[in-house]
């Protein structure tokens, strides 16, 4: 693979990269009228994978990450150039926060943070007005006009999964307030004034997802695998719902004992049904798959 980072001003022929689209999305593409109808109450999630995104040591390659993000953004917003996608995503925002995840075993890669920041700046936000934080988010990101929510996907002992819905937990003054019933009402977190309507994009990093939680520190290197992807959506429920399906598929493939996740991660379904944050029903999620196809599992 080449090492050049795509020029944001250069058009990306997005259709070239689209490998699979759900049936509904194909039908919608063929009929504008149907497209309008189908998009009501539906969510769009883009999965971008690249076989070359990890180097021999398992470290993400910055140039490939950038290219994957650009492709995903163009596909998500149905535009030709990444900068157009970012302008659509961020609107008139003057300050943008990137909410990351600093968990030491599987953190948001700096390469992802860098790729996001680069395009946010190119979309017109001054570099000094782009902030990146996790643990201090309640202080440092609360005043931002817009937020980008980016974290790796992993299983979680109590919440079932650690995904995009859970990631803004550091905006809460008392995170344990959201713990009852396996974090059932994590969706309520998104009504905090510092968060409500501010999250413009969700990036669920599935470069090396973790599919089983082990021990008090929750991590066991045997239970991550090089999936080499990123999931992008404006809908935090839909992107997490795809994440649950992905982890369930991997668990079914690998674990000796069947271990469904959806019930343990019921906060995803509840965030859609009760808190109206998005779409959890797989039948109403258009999953657009771009790039490397091997062992996609979803």
């Amino acid at each position, binding site marked *: 693979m080449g090492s050049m980072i795509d020029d944001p001003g250069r058009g990306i022929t997005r259709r070239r990269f689209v490998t699979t689209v759900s049936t509904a999305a194909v039908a919608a593409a063929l009929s504008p009228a149907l497209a309008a109808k189908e998009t009501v109450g539906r969510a769009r999630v883009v999965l971008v994978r690249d076989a070359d995104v990890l180097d021999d040591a398992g470290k993400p390659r910055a140039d490939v990450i950038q290219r994957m993000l650009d492709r995903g953004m163009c596909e998500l917003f149905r535009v030709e150039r990444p900068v157009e996608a970012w302008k659509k995503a961020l609107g008139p925002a003057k300050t943008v926060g990137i909410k990351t995840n600093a968990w030491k075993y599987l953190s948001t890669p700096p390469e992802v943070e860098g790729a996001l920041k680069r395009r946010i700046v190119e979309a017109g936000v001054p570099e000094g007005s782009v902030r990146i934080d996790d643990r201090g988010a309640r202080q440092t990101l609360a005043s931002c006009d817009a937020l980008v929510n980016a974290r790796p996907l992993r299983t979680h*002992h109590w919440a079932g999964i650690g995904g995009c819905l859970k990631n803004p937990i550091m905006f809460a003054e008392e995170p344990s307030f959201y713990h009852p019933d396996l974090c059932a009402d994590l969706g309520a977190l998104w009504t905090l004034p510092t968060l409500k309507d501010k999250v413009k994009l969700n990036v669920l990093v599935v470069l090396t997802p973790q599919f089983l939680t082990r021990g008090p520190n929750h991590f066991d290197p045997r239970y991550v695998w090089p999936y080499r992807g990123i999931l992008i959506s404006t809908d935090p429920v839909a992107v997490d719902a795809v994440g649950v399906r992905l982890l369930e598929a991997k668990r079914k493939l690998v674990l000796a004992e069947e271990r469904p996740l959806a019930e343990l991660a019921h906060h995803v379904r509840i965030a859609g049904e009760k808190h109206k944050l998005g779409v959890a029903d797989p039948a109403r999620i258009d999953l657009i798959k771009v790039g490397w196809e091997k062992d996609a599992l979803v």
Partner: protein
Amino acid sequence: MRLGTWAVRALACGLVGCAPMGGPVSLRSLVPTEAAGFGASGPDHTYDRETIFEYIDGAGEVYLQYDFRDVLVRDFARDGRPGVTVQVFDMGRPDEAFGIFSLEREDDDAGIGQGSEYGGGLLRFWKGRYFACVSAERETPETRDAILALGKAIAGAIPEAGAPPAILEGLPREGLVASRVRFFHGAFGLASRYPAADGKLLELSRDTDAVLATYRRGESSPRLLLIRYPEASRAAAALEAFSRGFVPPLGADAAVATGGGKWTGARRAGKAVVAVFETATREDLMDLLTRTTGRLEGMPWAR
């Protein structure tokens, strides 16, 4: 693995059903400061029921489902090698220590404490009222040696063994896969290990004892869930709710054929409810239910 050594030992020694033994000892006194060339580094940390979230965030809730009291964390280092961390949890009672160990058990026995597993640079074991984890940042031959040495030292320092939960006595032995016996209290345990059973329908809560076991019966792997409620009236109400709410609902004979030609059924015996899932035949289902309720007749805790 069939019925494991812990259960055999426990049954042979008459330990099951004994009163909890052993008061708390200083967690610091259980953990050595050196093993296999690794030495303690940095200060110890302790966390209790109030502060556990500071250490392991939301996953602390898993420990709060049991009678967790406090945990000691001690890091170990050796020049140029990945670090090793010891966590020793005082779980209040032996059955609670067994429970937290059993819920997550996946790997092969390491022969440490009363029950253990080792895999991927993580040792987990229980002994008496204590549950311990020893893990490495990265598994190497040296960290593996250190982990096992630390584990043996900790287990050796725990003064008394303890009894597994009495409810385990209710499990029929034939075909029982001992490494897949999970003890818990609330709905989390079922959501984590077997959500199809629906812990909310069964009204599981902090004051219920539940054990989920896997059996081998020919090519099938049925699950048996045995629950003890504080009162028989609660057991009756839970069985009623489960019988009606399970999809599909149980028939008049307390059994139902589910998808894929499998069978599910449930019965009550005093304060206990037993539910069996995924047997290959109706006869298998009835056999497991009958064997279990038969065992319960002689057990005071079920009356």
